[in-house]
Structures are given as structure tokens and as C-alpha cells.
């Protein structure tokens, strides 16, 4: 196991074009082991595009990712998940008509093996595996704090709980890197605070987090380092406090001509 401070994921010169729009241009960044890494930028800056390229939903036009020392070239989404990157979605994508528990159990798929023969014969190994899947899934529901809702349908869960369920399902794949796409969107202050605690726990338990977020207060209080994108370009990368004071970042967020004081008023 590599210690904190070493690179877990790095992207080098990532480019992605959609027709006339350069969604990502020459983005280079490094995420270290054990940190919470923020990805911020105004709407349309390319945050979700970077996510989708990273997780194999799109293929980049050029540039490459290295994850845990090995390149992540041309992998399909399920292979990326297999390598240890799990994600949540900006617009929640749960298996809505399945129970919370079943959702998490599906997350275990990539780390379990039983095939058709196991399913039909129900041999000892398959039964043991099923039991382990269920146990681990309950643990994860408990971990994110929604164990009492285990048997409720995903779509009957409260909004905040659905976000948590998505995180539990992603954690079920035993990720090295957990990529969260706006997990606090639409949450109130109390919910956001408890979510922050969850992030700290996850990091503490050894999973690195990549966080796309609009809630600046959350990003600045929870992230170790931050990457700022604007119009597909990297405009800053570094510790949260430093990035916050970066004139280019302030300009991108508040508009070039406006002074900081007027904007705050």
C-alpha cells in the first residue's frame, strides 16, 4: 500500500471535443493517495466531462490517465470500476425499483464471482458468497447511515438518503478512488454538514475522494486540494486556501471586471 502523498490518479494533457465545443483542453492534474480532491468551476466548465472521460463513458481525444501507476487507456466503464474507481451521478441514477439493500448488493457484483453454474447449483461457495454480499451491503448502508431503510425501494427514499445510497453503492465496489458528482446538490445546511462528516470518515478509512461540488463552503472546508476548470481549461490547482485567493479563480467565478466587495454585497 502506498502512503499518503503519492499520486493515485494523474491526468496528463486531457483533451475532449464535442463538435465545436472544446469541453476539455489540455487538462493536467494529480490526485494523491488519501486526500479529498475538489473539482470546481462555473457551470459548463467541463467538470462532468472530465468525470465521464475518466470513468470511461467518453473517450478522450488525446492525453492519458494513470491510476495507481498503470495507464487507464481505452478502458470501458465496467473495467474502470474494476480497477477501483467508483462514481456517483449528478442526477441520481439509482436502480429506482429495487430496494436500498439490493442497490448496494449490485455494487458488490464486480468484487464477486458466482456465475450461472453457481446460481443454478447453489453450491456452498455461492451460498457463502451471497451471505457475504448481503452482510457487507448491510454494513455499508449502516456506514452511510441509512440502515433502517434497507428494505425500502430506492425511489421511496428521501432525497438526501438517495444521495447516501448512491455513495454506499459506489463504496460496495471497494474503490480506491470515490468520485462524487455534486453530492451536496439540493441539500440543506444540516444535511451538508453530516455529509461532510461522511466524507471525512471515508477518507479516514483509506478511500481517496474526488469531489465535484458547487457548494464553495463545503469544498473549501473539506478538500485538501482543488482543481479549478473554466471553459475546459485548468486555471488553478493547489491547496484550497491558496486557490481561493487566486485572482484567475475569482475572475472566473465573479466576472473579470467586478470587484470582490461588490459581489459580496
Amino acid at each position, binding site marked *: 500500500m502506498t502512503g499518503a502523498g503519492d499520486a493515485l490518479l494523474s491526468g496528463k494533457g486531457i483533451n475532449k471535443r464535442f463538435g465545436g465545443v472544446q469541453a476539455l483542453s489540455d487538462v493536467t492534474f494529480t490526485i494523491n493517495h488519501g486526500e479529498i480532491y475538489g473539482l470546481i468551476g462555473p457551470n459548463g466548465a467541463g467538470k462532468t466531462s472530465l468525470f465521464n472521460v475518466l470513468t470511461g463513458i467518453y473517450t478522450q481525444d488525446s492525453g492519458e490517465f494513470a491510476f495507481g501507476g498503470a495507464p487507464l487507456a481505452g478502458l470501458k466503464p465496467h473495467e474502470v*470500476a474494476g480497477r477501483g474507481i*467508483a462514481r456517483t451521478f449528478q442526477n441520481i*441514477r439509482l*436502480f429506482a*425499483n429495487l430496494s436500498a439493500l439490493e442497490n448496494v448488493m*449490485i*455494487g458488490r*457484483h464486480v468484487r464477486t464471482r458466482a456465475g450461472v453454474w453457481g*446460481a443454478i447449483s447453489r453450491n456452498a461457495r*455461492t451460498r457463502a458468497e451471497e451471505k457475504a454480499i448481503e452482510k457487507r451491503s448491510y454494513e455499508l448502508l449502516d456506514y452511510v447511515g441509512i440502515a433502517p431503510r434497507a428494505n425500502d425501494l430506492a425511489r421511496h427514499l428521501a432525497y438526501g438518503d438517495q444521495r447516501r445510497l448512491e455513495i454506499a453503492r459506489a463504496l460496495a465496489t471497494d474503490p480506491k478512488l470515490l468520485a462524487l458528482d455534486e453530492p451536496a446538490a439540493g441539500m440543506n445546511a444540516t444535511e451538508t454538514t453530516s455529509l461532510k462528516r461522511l466524507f471525512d470518515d471515508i477518507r479516514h478509512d483509506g478511500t481517496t475522494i474526488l469531489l465535484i461540488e458547487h457548494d464553495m463552503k463545503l469544498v473549501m472546508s473539506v478538500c485538501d486540494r482543488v482543481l479549478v476548470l473554466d471553459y475546459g481549461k485548468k486555471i488553478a490547482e493547489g491547496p484550497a486556501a491558496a486557490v481561493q485567493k487566486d485572482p484567475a479563480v475569482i475572475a472566473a467565478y465573479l466576472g473579470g471586471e467586478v470587484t470582490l466587495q461588490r459581489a459580496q454585497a
Partner: protein
Amino acid sequence: MEILVDMKKHPAAAWIGLALIAVALAALPFALAAIGTAWVRITNLALLFVLLSLGLNIVVGFAGLLDLGYIAFYAVGAYTYALLASPHFNLHLPFWLILPLGAAVACLFGVLLGAPTLKLRGDYLAIVTLGFGEIVRIFMNNLSQPVNITNGPQGITLIDPFRIGDFNFAKTDVMLGLTFSGPVKYYYLLVLVLLAIIVINLRLQDSRIGRAWEAIREDEIAARAMGLNTRNLKLLAFAMGASFGGVSGGIFAATQGFISPESFVLVESVMVLSMVVLGGMGNIWGVILGALLLSFVPEVLRYTVEPVQRALFGRMLIEPEVIRMLLFGLALVLMMLFRPAGILPSAVRKREFARKAAT
């Protein structure tokens, strides 16, 4: 599934229930034979359709892939059996060898159909599978030249019945004072195969693979992001469904003794799909019920419509076939209005339809 839960809560009641069902299933062919031998044959055909529906249920019900050419796999199984156990090539291989072979060949065809269509969904997949079904039938029709493989529209005759040593499924035997005619023997065989396939279905549904299929049906992108290899899982669904079709086809060829491309037309695919949809996609008991209803009701009509009309009006006003299609259409419309998820819907499907109605 309900049976398994019952087992744990009331083991005695469950065992007595199972014993009663077993006795009823065992006695059924004799009761039917008393009404008329034809009814045993009709029951056998109905059981074959139950097998087919359970196979299609894996593709449509579990994995959510609409297949309108399913009968092609039935045809592949039937022709595999017929070609290897008939005077056509003068091959007479034993059934316990060809039946699995038929399943394997059908499975191969399932993968052949599945591989190029993996990216298609819904309507588009339906169109391609429909075409596939027709292609297979047309091949069977025309592969009589230049080399005569399938004997074209004349079909293949004198297909061997199942035989184990001296025990011949087509001959009438007297055992323990009971007369076992050919159809009765096939009935027992079909019931055994059916039980095996029900168990396979139930176990598949409630497994890691079954869950993965459910996830793909619910949200394919999320399923992929969770590490599910959707390509292989869909191919697996096609392959499993196809091999069940192949086994059914082999049994069909042996029971009938004659097959021709006529038996594998599009309407048959539609019929099997209707059984699955009417009964309740994804729910094994619903699918069985749907298949039995759609197999038996037309036969009952065939025997009752004419006498009833003669008794009432003194002559026949409407042909049984017309009434059959009328009732069939009416049943489908009523189902769509009142039970869109099927007569006995699966829990998950019921929720899906409830949500669609609500939004």
C-alpha cells in the same frame, strides 16, 4: 419464491401442498385420457409452450431485451434433433446426446443474434430479432438446394422418438396395470424437464446474475459504472434463453415425429411473447399461467364453440378460429387497460408500471 418462503414458515403444510401437486400432476394424464387422447397431446403442446415462455422470460423478463424472433431457437433445436435422428441423413443418434447438442447449437445462435444487436434497445432490437426469426425460417425453407439439408417446405418426417434401450416413448406400455401411451410418457418427461427449468429460473433470478440483469433493465449506464459487464450479461441472457428454446424444439420434434418451417412462423414468436407479457413478465408463475391460458383456451373453444352455437341457434354462426382471435384481441386490450404488468406481475415490474402511471 413464495414456495421457498412457505417452506421455512410452515414446512409441514408446504410439503403436504407439494405432495398434493405432485399427485395431481401424476394423475392428470389419465384423467385427460379419459376425456380424450387428444387432450394429452394438447397438454404436451401446452407444456412445450410453458418451456418456451420460461426461456423467453429470461431474455424479456429478466434482462429486459425485447425478442420478437424467439421461435427461431425453437426451430434450431427442432431441426438439430430432426436431422440427427431421422432417415433424412440416415442418422439415428440417441436423444440424450442430441438434446444437449440442440441446446448448444441454439445457444450459439443466441450469441450470434446477441452479439451484433447489443447496442440496440427497445423498438430497434425488436425489429432486428424479428428479422432474425424470419431469416432462420426462410433458411429452413430453402436449404434444400443445392445440397438438401433441411428438405425445404416438405419438412422432415419419421423423426425418431426418444428411446432409452428398449423403452420407447412412442409405444404404448402396460406397467403396474396402467396403460402408458406415447403421449402420456412424453407428458411425464415434459413435467420433469419443466420442473428442472423452473428451478433453474428461480435460482437464476435470485442470484448475483439475476440481480445484475435487473440492474441493467433499470439503468444500464449506472449498471456499467458499477462494474457490470453489460455486454457479457446480455449475451448470457440471450444464450440461456436460446438454449431453453433449443431443448423445447428437440422435444417438439420427437413428440411430433414431423417438422417443417410452417411450425416456426412469426405468429408463433408473437404467441410466446404474448404468453410472457399476459402472464406477467419476470414472474415465473405468471409466465407459466400465461402460457397455459393461451394454450388451453383456444383448444377449449375449438371443442365447445361449435356445439354451443348449434344448441343455441341450430347452426354455426361464427367460426371457432374467429372467436379465438376476437377473444385474444379483447383479452390483450383488457390486460393493457387493467393489468398492464400482467396477470401475476413480478414485484419489480409492478412497481415500474405503477410509477409510469403516476407520472
